[in-house]
Each structure stands twice: as C-alpha cells, then as structure tokens.
C-alpha cells in the first residue's frame, strides 16, 4: 500500500533548539498509528511539522506523494486535519459554528456553504455524538464533550489523514472509548489516523503500529506488543514494562514499575 503521509530524515528545530533528529515515518490509508514517548520527546512537534505548521530544517515530508512544501495551505487542509488538545481559550463559539469552520479549507473566506458542507458538518456531529450539543457554547461543555467537538471539526474537513495530539488527555474512560471508536469508524472509510497517545495501554489496544519517539528520534517502531516489550521503550520511559496475557482480553495488559 502506498503511503499517504511519509517523512524521511525529518529534522525540526524550535528556535535554537533541535527537537527532531532524522525522523522516518510513514502512514497508509486506513492505518491506525500511535506515536508514544516520554514528555519532551518531540511528539507534538512531529505532528505540527507533519501538518506544515513548523519550518523543516532538513529532510523530506510528502503528502499523497507530493512534497509538503508544494501544497497550497488550503489544499493541504483538505487532505490533512490536525486535532489539537483542548485549549481553554477558544470557547466562545457554539459547537456547530466551530465544527462548520472545518469547511473553511473547502470554501475559503467568501464562498457560501452548500448542502454538501452542511451535510459534512452534520455527519461529523452525528459521528462524534455531539449533535445534541450543536447549539451550546464550547465553554459550557465538559472537557470530554469539548474534545469530541474538536474532533468533529477535524472530521468536517473530510481529510484523508487525521492527526490528533493527545486526544484522550483529559477524558474519562467512557469518553476515551467513544473517541477511539470514532477513529476506528473513520479508518474504516479509508482515513489514515495518526495519534499521539499518552497512555501506553490505550495505544497498544487501539493502534496497529506504534512509533516510539525518544529524545527527538524514533527509538522503535512496529506492532504494539513488540514496541512496548522492547528494551528501548523501557529505557525511554525509565520504567520496567511487563505484558500480562489475560484470558478474554484481546490485548495484553501492561504493568509499569520503577526500573531501579
């Protein structure tokens, strides 16, 4: 399968600081890829660089086989959506108005919305279970509801690649399950999903492939079981990780203990 998103030798600096060193990564249509790693490993930087929001020092990123730099901004936003973690300050708009902004890449500043746009917004609200919240201000929602509403905006973009930065960070387990179920639904439609996931257990349960980022480098990548059981993962987090097979549960459960 050809990659919809591919990075080779990606180096990104933030200010004077090198953050990513020669990162290789590829993502295919319909794939679930989790990026894991300790704090300050460069996970958020990686997402922003892949979305074209940060200058690239060296290396190469291609979206649909076309260099990132060659994409006009709005065309890129039709291919690739970035869902960022809940931000306390963007709460004045209603859920529906905020989700409708996901159609901006398709309509730009002036062209009026069509039936197609309204349907896309409605589908996104339905899929994320936020249709009932459509008229509410985002500030009046719980963190979980707000995160689902932000995801809905990304879905309204109707991208081929959906990237999420710690989408489950503040969510209770019910909202977490709902969110990852939505991601699986859009994957079934052929959307490639790349998520930075904080919770290793969740990453292992959801993703088909895991990329471990440590110190701005890809320390390991592969099937979740291999990556989590590997020495690189234990070293990156400074803990001992053990997988336990539990009858009736499809994925091993992991326990984490002090490495010392």
């Amino acid at each position, binding site marked *: 399968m050809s990659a919809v998103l591919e990075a080779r030798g990606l180096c990104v600096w933030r200010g004077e600081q090198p953050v990513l060193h020669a990162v290789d990564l590829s993502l295919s249509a319909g794939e679930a890829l989790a990026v894991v790693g300790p704090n300050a490993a460069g996970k958020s930087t990686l997402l922003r660089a892949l979305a074209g*929001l940060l200058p690239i020092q060296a290396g190469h990123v291609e979206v649909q086989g076309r260099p990132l730099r060659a994409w006009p901004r709005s065309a890129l936003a039709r291919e690739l959506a970035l869902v960022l973690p809940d*931000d306390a300050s*963007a709460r004045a708009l209603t859920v529906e*108005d*905020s989700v409708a902004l996901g159609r901006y890449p398709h309509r730009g*500043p002036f062209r009026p919305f069509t039936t197609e746009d309204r349907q896309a917004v409605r589908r996104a609200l339905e899929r994320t279970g936020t249709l009932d919240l459509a*008229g509410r201000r985002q*500030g009046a929602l719980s963190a979980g509801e707000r995160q689902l509403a932000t995801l809905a905006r990304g879905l309204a973009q109707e991208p081929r690649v959906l990237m999420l930065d710690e989408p489950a960070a503040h969510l209770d387990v019910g909202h977490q399950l709902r969110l990852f179920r939505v991601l699986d639904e859009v994957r079934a439609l052929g959307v490639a999903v790349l998520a930075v996931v904080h919770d290793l257990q969740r990453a292992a349960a959801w993703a088909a492939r895991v990329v471990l980022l440590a110190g701005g480098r890809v320390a390991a990548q592969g099937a979740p079981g291999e990556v989590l059981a590997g020495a690189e993962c234990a070293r990156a987090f400074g803990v001992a990780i053990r997988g336990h097979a539990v009858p009736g549960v499809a994925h091993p459960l992991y326990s984490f203990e002090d490495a010392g």
Partner: protein
Amino acid sequence: MTPATRRRTLVVLVLLLPAALALAVTAGSVPLPLAGVAGSVARRAGLAAASTAPLGEAGEAILWSIRIPRVLLAALVGGGLAVVGAALQAVFRNPMADSGLLGVGAGAGFGAVVAVTLGLSADVFFALPLFSFAGALAAVLAVYALAHAGGRPSLHGLLLTGLAVSALAGAGMSVLLVRTEEFRVKAVLFWLAGGLEGRSWPHLASGALFIVVGGVLLLLLARPLDLLSLGEDEAAALGLSVHAARLGVLGVAALVAGACTAVAGSVPFVGLVAPHALRPLVGSRARHLLPAAFLGGASLVVLADVVARTASGRYDLPLGSLTAIVGAPYFLIALRGQEGR
C-alpha cells in the same frame, strides 16, 4: 444563545438605532419638534414640496449644520469602535480586548498634542484630527513592528508591546505638554476627554470614509476572524495564513479606530462593552457579532452624546468621561466574571 434570540436581538438593535437618532436630533439646548425634523428631512430629500422651512430659519440651521452631522458622527464613531472591539476580541482571543490595547488611544493623543504644540491646531483646520490619526497609525505600526522584531510574535508579546508603546506615547505627551502654553493645554485636555462639540460635515465626511470602508472590510473578514478565534495553530491547520490575516485585521482596525479617535477624541470602553454585552445574545460568530456590535455601539454613543449635551444647561460634559463612567464598572464586573470562570 438560540437563533431566535439572535434574530430578536438584531431586530431590536435595528429599531433602536433610528429611535436613538431621532431622539438625538430633537433633544438639545434648543429642542426641535420631531414632526418638524421629519418634515425638514423629507423636504431636503425631495419627498415633500413644502414651500417654507418647517423648523424656521434658526431651527433649520441648528438641525442641518450642527445636530445632524454631530448625531451621525456619534453613530459612526460608536459603531466603528464597537466593530473594531469585536474584531480585536477575536484576534486576541479575549472577550475583553479593545483598540486601546494596540496603542490607538495613546498614539492619537500624542498626535493631537504634537499638533497643538506646533501651533498648527489653531491655524490649520483639521490639523488636530489629522495628526491624531497619524499618531494612532504610527502607534499601531510601532507595536506591530516591535512585537515582530524578536521573530515570531506571540499575542502576549503584542499586548505587552502595546502597553509599552502606550506608556511611551503618554510620556511624550507629558513632556510636550509642560512646554506648551496654558491655553493650548486646555485645548488638548478637551480633545483627550473625548467629545463631539463643534464637529460638523467635514469631520463626518472624512471619518465616514475610513469607518464605513474599514467596517465593511472587517465584515468581509468574518470567516478568518472566526478561525483566528480558534487559535493560531488551529487556524493555520485549517488553511488560513495566520500572520497575513492578523496583520490585515489589525491594519484595518487601526484605520477605523484611528479615524474614530481623530474625529471624536478618546471615547473609551465602547469597543469593549458593545460586543461583550451582545455576545451572549447574538453569539460569537463574526458575521453576526460585527453588525450587531456596530448597531449597539452606534446607539450607545448617540445616546451618551445626548446626555453629554443635555445633562448640564451650561456646558457639554465630556463624552469620553460618560462612556468611561458606564464602561469602567462594566469592565470590572465582566472581568470578575471572566476570572471567576
């Protein structure tokens, strides 16, 4: 906020402004009857062929050379400041933002003082508003350039730079004022207090150009404004050129607020109060909030100017003080509400 509330609010605002305008042209030290005003306007518009002036010669003169331009100017200034406030609140992602943040007021004040110190304001008609406009623009450009000097500007950097530039303009103003003759200082103080006394058609014509064109431009930027309110990365990821959009909005906002301050002096808090108070009723989308803020801000300043003209029989109260007396407590209450959330 429901669509029904929004529609009702817009209807009320659309009715409120003409009512406020009608009240404002009739009220004053010489009250004019509404019927006479209507007749005179109809006659000028060629709708009624009255052979004699409905208000008498003096009344006609008051209406056409003093009251109507002043009232229209009040509406334009109020509407312009409110639209700018609404736009800046989106750009700064803060419901308490106002044109004062960018140094508009301080820059305009400094420009006014320069005009007075140079002795131009007495000799050259329009020197004061012109210098004040230039001062406002210079302040905003300085804020933007300084904030960008360190590379990628943050909004906090922009806000604090605005504070610093305002302080600098204020210092410059004080330095110039101590070397200015006393009678001229009084002219400056009156200007800074904000008011529409003595403003007429030329002020209206020159102000209207910037305010109306700028207001329409900001309304055309409604969707980018909504995107900016989401945050920088969010907006960029949706395909917006964030820096270009921000620069465009700030530039137009400076033109409008600069023009308002140039013709009316400092009229504080209108840009904050009108959009802030209307947001719960019409929502935060720029395409709804901007027009509502224009109507609300226009009505507010028209009515405030009526109070300024009629509260005392002997002199006009400063318009800017009136809006501050209403606006400052509102600001404090709203601030506590925001902090408490």
